[in-house]
C-alpha cells in the first residue's frame, strides 16, 4: 500500500518526471548514434507492445472481463491520428512532433469513446460471449477502414510523418504505467479488482459494477488507441491488415504469459512476445513453430503466467513492511 510515490510531494513528483524525461531523451540520442537500427526498432516495438499489454491487462487481468478486440481500438487510434497528420492535416502544426503528439492523444480519446461503446455489451454478456462480441467489434472496425477510400482502403495509408521515436514511445509507456499503477492503488481500482473476484459481492458493497466495467473498457481503449497512434507514426505506414484478429490474440498472449493482473507481468509478457520471435530468427522459419510451442508449454507448465498475480519485485522480499 505504501509505494514510495504516494508519499511524494508535487515538487518531488515534478523533479522525478523531469529527470526521467531528461534520461529518456539522453538514451534516445545515444540509441540514434550507438545502436544498430534493427535493435532500436525491436526496443521501440517492445514499448508499443507494453502499452498495449498494460492497457488490456486492465480489462482482462483486473476487471475480470475478456476482450479479444484490442487491435480494433489500436486501429481507431492509429487511423484517427494518421488521418489528422496525413490525410487532412489541419495546418502545418500536425506535421510537427508536438502536433503528432496532439494527434496521437486525440486518437486515444476517440478510441476511448469506441471502448465505451464496446464496453456496453459487457454489461449483459460474460466470458466467451463477451470475447466474441469484442472480436466482432474489432473486425467491424477493421472492415470499416477497409471500405473508406479516403484512408486508403485495403492499400492502407502511406507517408505518415514519422515522429514517434524511442523517446515518445517510452514516455507514453511510462505514463501508461503510472496511470494504471495509481488507478489500481486507488479506491476506483479496488472496485475494479473487486468486481473481478466477485461481481455480486462487489455490487452488494456499493460498487456500481456496470459503471466500472464500462470505465475499464474506455480507459483501456484509450491507451490502446495511443499505442496505435505511436505505431502509425513510427512505421509511417498502416493498413487494415495490421490490426487484424491475430494482433488482438498477440496482446492477450502477452497479458496471460506475463501473469494476469500484474503490471510488471504485462510488460514482461510484451517484451517476451516481441523479442522471442526476433531472437529466434537464427532458426529461420522454424521460429514460427517454436513460438507457439513455447506458448503451449508455458500454459502446461506455468499456467498462471510468468509472474502470476504478483509484481516482479514481490519475488525479491528484501524490505520488511
Amino acid at each position, binding site marked *: 500500500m505504501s509505494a514510495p510515490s504516494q508519499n511524494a510531494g508535487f515538487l518531488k513528483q515534478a523533479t522525478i518526471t523531469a529527470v526521467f524525461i531528461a534520461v529518456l531523451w539522453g538514451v534516445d540520442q545515444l540509441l540514434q548514434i550507438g545502436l544498430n537500427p534493427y535493435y532500436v526498432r525491436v526496443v521501440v516495438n517492445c514499448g508499443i507492445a507494453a502499452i498495449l499489454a498494460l492497457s488490456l491487462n486492465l480489462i482482462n487481468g483486473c476487471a475480470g472481463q475478456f476482450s479479444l478486440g484490442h487491435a480494433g481500438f489500436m486501429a481507431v487510434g492509429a487511423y484517427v491520428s494518421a488521418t489528422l497528420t496525413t490525410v487532412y492535416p489541419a495546418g502545418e502544426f500536425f506535421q510537427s512532433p508536438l502536433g503528432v503528439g496532439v494527434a496521437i492523444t486525440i486518437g486515444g480519446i476517440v478510441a476511448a469513446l469506441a471502448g465505451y461503446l464496446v464496453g456496453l*455489451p459487457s454489461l449483459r454478456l460474460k466470458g466467451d460471449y463477451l*470475447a466474441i462480441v469484442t472480436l466482432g467489434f474489432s473486425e467491424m472496425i477493421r472492415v*470499416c477502414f*477497409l471500405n473508406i477510400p479516403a484512408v486508403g482502403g485495403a492499400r492502407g495509408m502511406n507517408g505518415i510523418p514519422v515522429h514517434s521515436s524511442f523517446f515518445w514511445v517510452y514516455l507514453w509507456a511510462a505514463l501508461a504505467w503510472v496511470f494504471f499503477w495509481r488507478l489500481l492503488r486507488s479506491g476506483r481500482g479496488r472496485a475494479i479488482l473487486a468486481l473481478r473476484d466477485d461481481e455480486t459481492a462487489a455490487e452488494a458493497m456499493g460498487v456500481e459494477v456496470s459503471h466500472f466495467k464500462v470505465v475499464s473498457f474506455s480507459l483501456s481503449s484509450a491507451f490502446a488507441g495511443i499505442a496505435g497512434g505511436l505505431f502509425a507514426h513510427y512505421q509511417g505506414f498502416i493498413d487494415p491488415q495490421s490490426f487484424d484478429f491475430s494482433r488482438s490474440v498477440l496482446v492477450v498472449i502477452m497479458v496471460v504469459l506475463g501473469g494476469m493482473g500484474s503490471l510488471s507481468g504485462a510488460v514482461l509478457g510484451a517484451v517476451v512476445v516481441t523479442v522471442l520471435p526476433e531472437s529466434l530468427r537464427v532458426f529461420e*522459419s522454424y521460429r514460427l*513453430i517454436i513460438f507457439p510451442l513455447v506458448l*503451449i508449454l508455458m500454459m*502446461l507448465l506455468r*499456467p498462471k503466467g510468468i509472474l502470476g498475480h504478483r509484481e516482479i519485485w514481490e519475488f525479491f522480499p528484501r524490505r520488511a513492511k
Partner: protein
Amino acid sequence: MQAFIQNLINGLALGGVYALVALGYTMVYGILQFINFAHSEIFMLGAFAGLFVAVALQDVGSTPVVVTAVVFASMAACMAVGALVERLAYRPLRSAPRLNVLITAVGVSLLLQNAAQILWGATPRVFPTILETQPLWQGTELVLTNVQLIVIVVSAVLVFGLSILVNRTKLGMAMRAVSFDFDVSSLMGIPTDRIIVFTFMIGCSLAGCASILYGISYPKIEPMMGVVIGMKAFVAAVFGGIGSLTGAAVGGLVLGLSESFTIYYVSSTFRDAIAFAILILVLLLRPSGLFGVVRKEKV
C-alpha cells in the same frame, strides 16, 4: 426473383459448410466449455489431406471412387489430428482455468498454421477437379449446379446423422451426460476421457468433410484458409447458442445466407462485417444465443 433464389442457393451451400465446422466448435464447447481455436486449422489440414489424395488418385478415372477416397482420407486425417491435439495439449489442462485452455488452443492453432506453411508453403494451391461442375438446372439469371446440390445435401445428411448419434445412441447419451456434468458422469462410470476424444474426433471429421465440400466449391487451398472460415463458423456457433447442435446448424445457415445476400445487395467487402453485426445484435437481445441455455449463478 431469380437473383433472390440464386442467392438463397449460394447461401445454403456456403451455410452448409459453416454449419459443419460450427458443429465442431459447439460440440467441444458443450463438453469442455472452451473455444477450440485449433478447429479452423483442422479444417485446413483436412483440405490439404484431401488435396494430396486427390492428386495421388489423378489417374483413377472413376469419379465416385476418387470422391469417396478423398472425403474419407480427409475425415480420417482430421480425426487423427484432433485426437492427437486433445491428448497432448488439452487433456493435461483438464482442471486448469478456462483462459489457459483458450490460450493453449490459440497456440495449437498458430502451431498448425505455421507448420503447414513450412511444409507446404504459403502460396495457394488449386484443389484438383474431382467433380466436374455441371449446371443441373438453369434459368435466365439462375443456376443450380451439381456441386451446390451435393454440398447442401451432404451437409444436411451429416447434420441429421449427428443429431441421431447424439440423441439416439448410447455414445450420444454419454456425450450429453459428460457435457451436462463432467464430474458426476465420471462418477457414474462413464469413461469421460474416451468420450471427450470421441467428441473431438466426430467434430473434426465433420470439419474434414466440410473442407472437401469447400474445396470442390472454392478450389483454393492454403495454410491460412482456416482462419476466416473458422472465425465465421464459430460466430455461427455462438450466434446459435454455443453448446447447442441445432444452434450451430441454424447459425451456420443464417450466416451463409446473410453473407450471400450481403455480397449481392450491398458489397462484397462488407461480407465479413455482416456476420459480426448480426451476431452482436442477437447477443444483445439474447445474451446466450438463439438456442443457448442461460445458466444462473447461485447467490
